[in-house]
């Protein structure tokens, strides 16, 4: 069963052809990593899955992107509902200027959940699943900015998980963190993969290798190779992939 499917996706920023004819199928419950040099389109592609590129003026998509078999760019799709089901974690920790509790409760509140007891329960579950509960349970009312960078990023993951998304998009989630925090995030990714399908964009090939089951290599707007992570990292089919992962690039 494929969670996400992209069919012949072409994407343009104005006249710039950012993504060229991409086909990919991401199976449910997998962790898929997108790697490639800067500007290769991997982040752009990721942001197509929750229609985040809608906000960019002059952006244009051709082809289809299906989640659970439904075209998410169909006119009848309510983009808020789509995004509720597709969580996202960003490059830098970006907690809202609110308390820790309110950060996690945010997704519930903006989607009309009003039951206080239920919200508290979900907040606890989400923080627990982000391995943060024991660290913050006594200071839920404090500002999220009081947390360390790594904790903030886990808070952002908890925030995304609170609405139980079936897909979690991660855009270089550990690139702004120190190695120990990075390790915690990676561990978290492995644990969350039992709850949701994860697509992660990363600059660090080691990270892709460590956390993902499948890896896609992007170069100049094209998807050069997509396959089992073990295969990509030991015996890639394309020379470009090999050059990139061995650092012999360019």
């Amino acid at each position, binding site marked *: 069963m494929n969670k996400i499917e992209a069919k012949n996706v072409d994407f343009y920023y104005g006249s710039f052809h950012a993504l060229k004819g991409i086909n990919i199928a991401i199976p449910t419950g997998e962790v898929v990593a997108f790697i490639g040099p800067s500007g290769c389109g991997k982040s752009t592609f990721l942001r197509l899955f929750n229609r985040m590129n809608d906000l960019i003026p002059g952006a244009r998509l051709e082809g289809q992107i299906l989640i659970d078999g439904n075209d998410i760019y169909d006119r009848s799709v*309510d983009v808020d*509902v789509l995004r509720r089901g597709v969580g996202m974690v960003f490059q830098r920790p970006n907690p809202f200027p609110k308390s820790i509790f309110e950060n996690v409760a945010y997704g519930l509140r903006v989607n009309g959940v009003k039951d206080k007891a239920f919200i508290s329960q979900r907040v606890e579950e989400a923080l627990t699943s982000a391995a943060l509960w024991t660290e913050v349970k006594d200071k839920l009312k404090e500002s999220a900015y009081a947390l360390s960078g790594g904790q903030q990023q886990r808070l952002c993951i908890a925030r995304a998980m609170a*609405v139980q998304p079936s897909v979690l998009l991660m855009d270089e989630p550990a690139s702004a963190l120190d190695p120990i925090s990075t390790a915690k995030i990676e561990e978290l990714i492995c644990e969350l993969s039992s709850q949701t399908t994860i697509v992660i964009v990363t600059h660090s090939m080691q990270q892709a290798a460590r956390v993902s089951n499948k890896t896609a290599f992007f170069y100049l707007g094209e998807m050069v190779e997509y396959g089992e992570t073990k295969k990509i990292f030991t015996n890639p089919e394309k020379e470009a992939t090999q050059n990139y992962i061995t650092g012999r690039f360019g």
Partner: protein
Amino acid sequence: MALQFDPAYNRRKRRLQTAVFGLFRLLSYAIALVLFVILGFIIVKGISVVNWTFLTQAPTDGMTGGGIWPAIVGTFYLMLGSALFAFPVGVVSGIYMSEYAPGGKLVAFIRMMTNNLAGIPSIVFGLFGMAFFVTYLDFGDSILAGSLTLGLLALPIVIRTTEEAFRDIAPSYREGSLALGATKAQTIWHVLLPMAMPRVITGLILSLGRVSGETAPILFTCAAYFLPKLPASIFDQCMALPYHLYVVATSGTDIEAQMPIAYGTAFVLIVIVLVMNLVAGLIRRHFEKKLNTK
């Protein structure tokens, strides 16, 4: 308990957003409309008054006839005078802030003082000008006193733009020049000043625009209700467009006859301000384009 979302809430929040954004758009257009109403009102009513005689004659018949030539000249003198004072002092002070001042508390203090100076109401400048330039330094009601008062008003604007213009120059230029053995003064003169010049000039023009429209500071330092002759020296009083507009619009014997003159004066004043803004904008745009193509 399973997570469940209310589809009705979703529809509600969408509708709310449409309504709020619609309202915001309406208010924004309303503000733009207000500007056009003000400008349009003054332009439509004023343009018919303005002709060559209006621009080149002195007022006649107890302000109910004639033109505004002395006021235009007076405003020009005041702008020139304040520029002569504010530009050198302001630019040098701005350079000090960016290039010389030791960091930390001192700069923060000076910057705070500059910001405070910028925030002082113009009428307080007027009071100060009267007490200091007119009375204490005994310049009397004169172009000199008025220019200096207006210059003080323009000072913070000049300082701020100069400081920002210099601060935005990459340190590598300074280091490059210093590494060739140039002194700091040489570096500023030969390298930094030419680079910062366009933005500094933009700031200067904007400050002139502000000066040209100010009334309160010259009320007691320089402005004359009516002068048949043009000022002969910097110790003479002069007329000025904004003050003239104030006088013609609020006091006088024959309101009916004075109104067209008021519209004409307002029109000229607006044109000066618009031109100043336009020129500043053009210089900025030209400069930005040049930077981008580099």
